[in-house]
């Protein structure tokens, strides 16, 4: 397996009036080419910050403090995205790394026809491309996401939420990227539309082998599509591993709690249990293990959360990593 993205010790801060928030704290993990990686976490856990970091679109008051994001293009020459100048990165953006933003429905310009979005995007990277070539490619992509060609002549307000989302997925694939970051791509869509979008993404992945990073708070979606999962809690990645392992044998109490907390359509409802407490405020992070105050292991006296200062994930075999020192006790 070849890596496509290696993130090492990435720290991203936001300055606020009441102090500095570290929204992404010492995050390290590796994404392999051709895989779908899911990042789950609650709101405020730092998922979107991490994605913005990879895309280098952190704006003040936020800033990237330290770390490396190593990108391996298909020709094999590794670059550190954080060392690139604005112009150099602009060349990679959309041709190599692209994104579908959260609330993507609002990304389209309401005064422009859909076709002009495609033309503008393509010509921004290569001014010599003719409109015919771009539109031909756009039509191919529309077939891929099962939209009719006539939609190209529509304005955004004429489309439904699901159609807009599909348009944006097509737009993100316009320049044949090899890494696609999807930030909550199906939130705010109905179940049937959501099913449809996931199906499209899965097929695109099968056909093109594109690497995808899938950010969501909805575990049920992730189980059905991704190969590998990173679980984020309070600005840290607490667990990373293959989807079957993480789902069936979690090695962090937070993951375990999440799995137990999500009602499904088929399981026994009486086995569901909520995680006690609330996620901490990032301005006053608990000492030691950040999940400690809500953790059943810590409350059961199995772990001294105050003393435990695990900052790096431990490798626990089978390409799995956990931030919990007591991962063996997680059952």
């Amino acid at each position, binding site marked *: 397996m070849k890596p496509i993205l290696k993130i090492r010790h990435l720290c991203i801060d936001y300055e606020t009036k009441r102090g500095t928030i570290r929204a992404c704290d010492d995050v390290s993990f590796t994404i392999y080419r051709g895989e779908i990686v899911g990042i789950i976490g*609650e*709101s405020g856990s730092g998922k979107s910050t991490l994605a913005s970091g990879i895309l280098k679109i952190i704006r003040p008051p936020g800033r990237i403090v330290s770390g490396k994001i190593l990108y391996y293009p298909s020709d094999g020459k590794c670059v550190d995205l954080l060392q690139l100048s604005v112009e150099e990165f602009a060349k990679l953006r959309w041709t190599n790394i692209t994104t579908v933003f959260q609330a993507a429905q609002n990304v389209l310009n309401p005064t422009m026809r859909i076709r002009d979005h495609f033309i503008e995007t393509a010509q921004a990277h290569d001014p010599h491309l003719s409109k015919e070539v771009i539109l031909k490619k756009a039509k191919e992509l529309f077939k891929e996401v099962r939209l009719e060609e006539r939609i190209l002549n529509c304005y955004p307000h004429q489309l*439904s939420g*699901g*159609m807009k989302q599909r348009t944006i997925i097509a737009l993100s694939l316009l320049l044949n990227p090899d890494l696609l970051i999807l930030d909550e791509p199906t939130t705010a869509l*109905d*179940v*049937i*539309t*959501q*099913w*449809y979008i*996931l199906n499209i993404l899965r097929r695109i992945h099968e056909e093109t082998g594109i690497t995808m990073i899938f950010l969501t*708070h*909805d*575990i*049920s*979606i*992730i*189980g*059905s599509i991704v190969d590998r999962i990173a679980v984020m809690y309070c600005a840290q990645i607490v667990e990373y591993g293959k*989807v*079957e392992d993480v*789902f*069936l044998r979690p090695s962090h109490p937070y993951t375990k*709690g*999440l*799995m137990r*907390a*999500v*009602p*499904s*359509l*088929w399981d026994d*409802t009486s086995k*569901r*249990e*909520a*995680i*006690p407490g*609330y*996620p901490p405020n990032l301005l006053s992070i608990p000492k030691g293990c950040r999940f400690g105050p809500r953790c059943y292991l810590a409350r059961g006296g199995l772990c001294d959360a105050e003393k435990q200062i695990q900052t790096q994930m431990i490798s626990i075999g089978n390409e799995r990593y956990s931030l919990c020192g007591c991962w063996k006790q997680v059952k």
Partner: protein
Amino acid sequence: MELKNASFSFEASQGREKKKIGALVDINLSIEEGEIITVVGESGCGKTTLGKLIAGIYKPAEGQVLYKGHDIWKLRGKSFKEYRLGVQMVHQDSYAALNPNKTIFQSLSLPLRQHKIAKNSGQAADILFQYFNEVGLNPPEIFLEKYPHQLSGGQRQRILLARALSVQPKLIVADEPVSMVDVSLRLSLLNLMAKMNRKYRISFVYITHDLSTARYIASNGRIMVMYLGRQIALDKIQHAIEHPVHPYFQALIKAVPDPNPKRRSKYAPELPLRSLDMPNLLDLPSGCKFNPRCPYCVRRCIEEEPRLRKLEGGGLIACHRAEEIMAGTAKPQMP
């Protein structure tokens, strides 16, 4: 609470002509004391409008909304007040539902003083303390002096629930109460509502598009499925999910992603739908409103709109071919 042939429509202008959108058409529903009913459907199907009709925010264009057997729009004085207190609503967006310029105490003590449940603010505080403890906001005094923006979404949603509870209602309409709350907190809110239901015998109308949470909260209750303003199925929830009959509900259940990666291969089959997009609300199809998407559609479905009827060995359903579908003799036709 009972709805009798209730209809409601919005006016929309398309170019020069004015059209009516039937947001709710001929709804019949009775809610028993202590019952939990969940209402599911895609966005735009009229779920929220139904909630607002029950809470007396909208007046039905036709039909009646009855509370303890009396039409709520004919109630006056004391009996109207009793209804107003008896039916409370918890909204989806907890931030929009609280006045940002007032502290929680100011917002929540107002209805108590207005309805003379509390004689003075000291008494109001006592009542609120009791309910804040109940919904798990401990210690209460910290939360009462805060402004809405200082609280998290989960906490605000609990406050809304405490506000609804503080006037001792008989029925709470909860409109997507957990859809904007984090997953780890969702379950505790659902548990809380189920507890209130058991403890005070408060009925709940739980409006959602998430079948899994619906099944979780109303495991003994009923489910009502809506499509384009129509009731298309009404049944015991457990039975309905295990044996879905209406083709739309079948598709809805199939579309729910299964979190277990081991069962992933099962996830792949196509949805039993002919088209994935909803028809335009201003230009509805004739006959059964689901016919352009339904794989079981026959001529009768285009000509005649099915009525909600009792199905042998099932709940209420609005589908001409329900018996055939249940017996497995109807053949789905896919494009």
